[in-house]
């Protein structure tokens, strides 16, 4: 597809109606908490935008992030913008392979140097470059080379944003996040395992409309999508406040849809938009389908101590250490007791008896 075509023309060619396009713009504006007056501005900006060049690099990942974007039941505008219009290079999706694919990447880099968006999913192994290579190029080399000409980088998925499952203890490949290697480019983290598709296109739309990246939180995530915990937006929250909890996955509480906190739900410490935007075209999200949140958009969520342990209980086994500590306490207490008794006995033995005769001397 030629680069001079505007996004509006490209979308129309894909059969997206004006109504569908405006609907997408309105949804994006409302998701990003922008006023309705911004909708025409977004529409105008996207309409006129030259199709953005996007290079997508996949490193140590499971393809779940790509699946999340591309396997929706009906093709969406966001899917089209990203999947069929923008992508110049996505080695999982594109038909070309090996050197032909690498050629596409190099060409896109050359033509849009300094302007393209780089999307990365997957973590980068730095332990041994051989753990993950593409066309004989190590992930680290490819990232460093491609990042040089990028306007901004979007780390899609928890692996790219924070290391994800490859980085989980004991991290056999020495996996790191994109932000661990790239320090001189704006990086937008869109974590989740997988992330919500609309967040990615929201970030893209924001970039095309305003020419800037959205405001980020201290974990590098766009605040508009990751500003609140799932717990605070959860429809089951009233049950938490009332003290009504499911104690197992098949008890009465579970059937009545009570809070899943005791079953290990990590929603109180998970910042994501699942409870509001939901998944599969707004159908549902994990808690709605009866399973606690596993905290997949948080750094190191695999090592948080177990998906089924309540947030308020300890991660590590306590009993053995506690027993040993109590036993040590008994020993130390006994030693103290001996010392005190000895002090008492010494005082007693040193005690001199004084008689009337002594005093009258």
């Amino acid at each position, binding site marked *: 597809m030629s680069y001079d075509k505007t996004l509006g023309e490209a979308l129309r060619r894909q059969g997206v109606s004006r109504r569908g396009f405006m609907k997408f713009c309105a949804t994006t504006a409302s998701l990003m908490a922008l006023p309705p007056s911004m909708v025409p501005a977004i529409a105008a900006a996207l309409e006129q935008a030259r199709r953005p060049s996007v290079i997508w690099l996949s490193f140590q990942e499971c393809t779940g992030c790509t699946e999340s974007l591309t396997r929706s039941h009906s093709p969406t505008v966001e899917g089209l913008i990203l999947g069929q219009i923008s992508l110049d290079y996505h080695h999982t999706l594109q038909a070309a392979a090996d050197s032909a694919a690498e050629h596409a990447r190099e060409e896109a880099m050359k033509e849009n140097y300094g302007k393209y968006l780089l999307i990365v999913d997957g973590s980068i192994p730095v332990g041994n470059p051989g753990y993950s290579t593409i066309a004989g190029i190590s992930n680290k080399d490819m990232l460093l080379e491609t990042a040089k000409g990028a306007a901004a980088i979007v780390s899609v998925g928890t692996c790219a944003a924070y290391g994800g499952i490859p980085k989980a203890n004991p991290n056999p490949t020495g996996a790191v996040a994109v932000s661990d290697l790239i320090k001189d480019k704006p990086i937008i983290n869109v974590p989740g395992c997988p992330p919500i598709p609309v967040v990615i296109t929201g970030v893209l739309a924001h970039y095309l409309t305003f020419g800037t990246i959205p405001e980020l939180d201290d974990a590098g995530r766009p605040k508009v999508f990751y500003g609140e915990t799932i717990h605070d937006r959860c429809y089951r929250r009233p049950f938490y406040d009332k003290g009504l909890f499911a104690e197992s996955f098949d008890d009465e509480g579970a059937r009545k849809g009570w809070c899943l906190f005791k079953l290990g739900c990590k929603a109180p410490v998970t910042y994501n938009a699942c409870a509001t935007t939901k998944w599969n075209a707004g159908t549902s999200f994990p808690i709605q389908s009866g399973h606690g949140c596993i905290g997949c958009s948080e750094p190191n969520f695999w090592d948080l101590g177990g998906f089924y342990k309540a947030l308020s209980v300890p991660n590590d086994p306590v009993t053995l250490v506690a027993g040993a500590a109590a036993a040590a306490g008994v020993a130390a207490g*006994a030693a103290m007791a001996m010392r005190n008794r000895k002090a008492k006995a010494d005082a007693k033995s040193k005690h001199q008896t004084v008689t009337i005769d002594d005093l009258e001397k």
Partner: protein
Amino acid sequence: MSSTAMDLLTWVRGPGFVIAVAIFLFGIVLRLIEIYSLGRKPDLAVARTESRGSGGRTILGRSLPPEGMLKRSPITYIGGYIFHIGLFITVLLFEPHIELIRNLIGISWPGLPSPVVDAAAIISIIALIVVLANRITDPVKRFLSNFEDYLTWTLTLLPLLTGYLAYHHLFLNYTLMLALHILTVELLLVALPFTKLFHTFSLFAARWYNGDISGRKGVAS
């Protein structure tokens, strides 16, 4: 990328908690054995009065203000009661806390709705501040106070305050505040056996002993 908050939370829920519980148990067992092993010389004298029940009555009696004291020192009694009751409600009747206790020792009981616990927590915090102000402004109390009094006050306030702030998402993000909340509880656990906070364990035994020995000496309560 900053993952400090989650890392801290993982530490306080993991190794931090184990360390705190270990020091706490070690200290409690050590001090209980030390105190109870001291013993007393056999009392060879005949008891001055029939002292049976005197210990038990003292446990109860010392919990109530002696005549006239409520008027003379209302903040001590009322503030103290409000703080302690609020603290018990907050610590023992908040569902996530009960879940922790159930996980550790296997027993549990019904909790209260979180807005009720929330109210108890803020009332406790206010009571703590009032008794501190009273301690500082009252010349006698100020004279009697030392570093340990202010340290234990701070260690008691911090878990209440951080818990309250976390619940309301104030100042810091929830993850970091929750981590600080658990961390301050762990500091409290570590300090408890070795400071006057040990009254949690020694209070009733000490009262019983005072009542009983006084009873034998002729001032039965």
